[in-house]
């Protein structure tokens, strides 16, 4: 195998002043976590770039497959190496440029010599390599200013290193570098996307879901678990808090007028979420709300709901069109899971015509006749917590059949 290491260029983190070391350490830990199945990995972090040593082809395949999903990486390049010999480096350059053999592109050769004793000087080596590449691939042409591809050759003390490909990374910031927040995960299309976007900004997630047995099935719960599990592939563990919500829903239905049950329900959900947030030491609450999408997402509704807490509520999708959200959901592979047609707790007691412009004073008035606190405490206390990625237990029950 010609490949020696992968060079990783940092994303936005290289512009952050004194937190830089923290950011880089965080990224290195996240890389280790994402590739826990192929450890050990030799990772060398420098101020401006990081190197992962490649020991064998299997590791290389796994790395190339998953690196594009890790936040905090601007781009990365596989680096090959060969002995310090002119013919060897020529052959390697030709082999590597073979990646572009079906494309009409421009390139240039860049040579850096750390070992000044190497038989050819920078210029000669540049010319020789450019020449041999041009002779092998008719479709390539040389362009010194802004070429499509830069073939970089470094003559170091131990060997010669060659790279050409620059593979885009996921961008963003390493997960965990911007604290922890609690995501309200419904099972729909929007909330996983909201979670993804915040993770991309370096936020570590925990998730909260409301379920109403026996009216909602195991399927709808499984769907949410699957979604939480999907989100872990971006390189972090996620805890999912499942809140039993039936009792509160029934109570709300009894105690407030039908057309405002929706608003009160959301207010209760947010109060529960806020308590869980406090317990887990998270700083904000994330929702998938998008302005005007449904009755609970008008500015009036958001105002009435938001009133129960002063905690920052992050709504990364607030200005997104539905189609744009769907596009991201498809990209991150949550769409197919989200569209499974299982009832969730929001759809079982839906009023025929919920108020789209609820008045906060009125809602507070209706709620004032009931003491919800005790119910909220109980819901929080009786929650189930699952950790993802989880091992598939069911899979093992089946394995002897297969």
């Amino acid at each position: 195998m010609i490949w020696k290491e992968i060079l990783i260029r940092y994303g936005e983190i290289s512009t952050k002043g004194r937190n830089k070391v923290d950011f880089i350490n965080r990224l290195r830990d996240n890389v280790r976590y994402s590739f826990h199945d192929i450890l050990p990995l030799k990772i060398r972090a420098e101020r401006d770039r990081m190197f992962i040593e490649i020991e064998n082809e299997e590791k290389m395949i796994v790395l190339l497959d998953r690196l594009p999903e890790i936040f905090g990486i601007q781009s990365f390049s596989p680096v090959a190496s060969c002995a310090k010999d002119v013919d060897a480096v020529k052959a390697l350059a030709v082999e590597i440029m073979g990646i572009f053999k079906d494309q009409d592109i421009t390139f240039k050769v860049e040579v850096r010599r750390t070992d000044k004793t190497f038989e050819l000087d920078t210029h000669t080596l540049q010319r020789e390599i450019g020449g041999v590449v041009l002779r092998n691939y008719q479709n390539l042409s040389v362009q010194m200013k802004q070429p499509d591809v830069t073939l970089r050759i470094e003559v170091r003390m131990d060997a010669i290193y060659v790279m050409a490909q620059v593979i885009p990374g996921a961008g963003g910031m390493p997960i965990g570098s911007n604290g922890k927040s609690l995501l309200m995960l419904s099972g729909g299309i929007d909330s996983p996307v909201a979670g993804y976007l915040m993770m991309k900004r370096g936020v570590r997630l925990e998730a909260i879901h409301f379920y109403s047995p026996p009216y909602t099935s195991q399927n709808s719960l499984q769907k949410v678990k699957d979604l939480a599990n999907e989100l872990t592939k971006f390189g972090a563990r996620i805890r999912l808090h499942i809140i039993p919500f039936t009792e509160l829903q029934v109570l709300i239905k009894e105690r407030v007028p039908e057309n405002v049950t929706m608003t009160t329900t959301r207010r209760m959900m947010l109060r529960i979420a806020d308590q869980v947030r406090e317990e887990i030491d998270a700083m904000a609450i994330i929702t998938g709300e998008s302005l005007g999408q449904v009755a609970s997402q008008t500015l009036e509704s958001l105002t009435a709901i938001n009133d129960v807490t002063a905690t920052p509520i992050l709504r990364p999708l607030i200005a997104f069109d539905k189609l744009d959200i769907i596009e991201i959901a498809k990209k991150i592979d949550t769409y197919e899971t989200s569209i499974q047609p299982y009832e969730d707790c929001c759809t079982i007691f839906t009023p025929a015509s919920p108020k789209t412009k609820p008045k906060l004073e009125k809602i507070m008035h209706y709620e004032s006749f009931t003491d919800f606190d005790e119910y909220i405490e109980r819901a929080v206390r009786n929650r189930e917590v699952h950790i993802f990625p989880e091992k598939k237990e069911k899979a093992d029950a089946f394995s002897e059949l297969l």
Partner: protein
Amino acid sequence: MIYLDNSATTKPHKEILDTFVQVNEQYYANPASIHEAGVTANALLTRAREQLAHLLHTETNNIIFTAGGTEANNFAIFSVARISTHKGRHIITTEIEHPSVLEAMKGLEEEGFDVEYLSVDASGVISLEELRQKVRKDTILVSIMHVNNEVGAIQPIEEAARIIHTQSRALFHVDAVQSFGKMPIAFNGETGPDFLTVSGHKIHALKGSGVLAMRKSFPIVPFIVGGGQEFGLRSGTVAVPQAVALAKAARLAVESIPANSKKYKAWQQELRAFLKSFGRDIHLLSTEQGAPYITSLSIRDLKGEILINALQKEGIIVSTSSACSSKQTKTSHVVEALNIDPHFKKGVLRISFGMHTTDEDIQLFKQAFTKIMKQLKGDSTT
């Protein structure tokens, strides 16, 4: 009973039958139901699908369970033809396909499709040169079987795929019923087949189960419509026990390919040497390059049926060229296509090995065969 007719069907493997029964007992719910039992059955079905996808090198959603190889062949052919009419109406297949392909092709011809048939040489193999000449810009489908069921000829699938994909936008269907689980066959990115047909009962699973596998999710249309099971592509309540049994059979078969092919190859050599010792009374239709688990031969001026009956009396089960066509008195289309000496057209006999075949079976076959040949042809041979 010494069963040497494994290309007609195989005896279900004990382990696979156990799986089948167990799934029927424990996971009998309809996998489309939304109650928990249904969800569990569906999870099991998905595991079976994943296992097959893994073995065939494709994605899980590209495995469609059918009621067997015939349905999968029909499905692939009619479906690809129907979605491709904007690209053309030209189809290529071979003269020696299984009837489930040939009859489908006849149907398409009646609908106005232009079907061309590749001929085969004396060993039953197509000519890549002829394929190269016949593939056109407006060819929409090419269907070539991997291993022929009557004589065991192996078609050059990889090379054929390369020609088809470089010269046309046609989709390439491969009937792998006689090869999957016995020889390596799988999708190979854009340079391999696009559709593969697999049958359960040829690899010691149950009759009535098969798979149409796709390289990627092509926008095909269903052949059987109804409740929209199998991603809307094959309606009918999915037979989860059959599917799981098939997935298990596939795994067991693929895992034992190295060991089995070694055994089969040795027996093939042994049988060939043995049969050649009968001199000009016997013509071998199978070649050494063919699938090692199928040996077809023909006896001069004799009807295959006579030999089958005689061997049966000795407790040995073999068949004439194929089980499907063995009841017909006319010469099989494959034997016709091989263009052999007319003296040898009627007396075709097929010996086919399976996972349960033993060395003793082969020795007993040889003894019985020698005895029968003496009775029928006298001592003049050898």
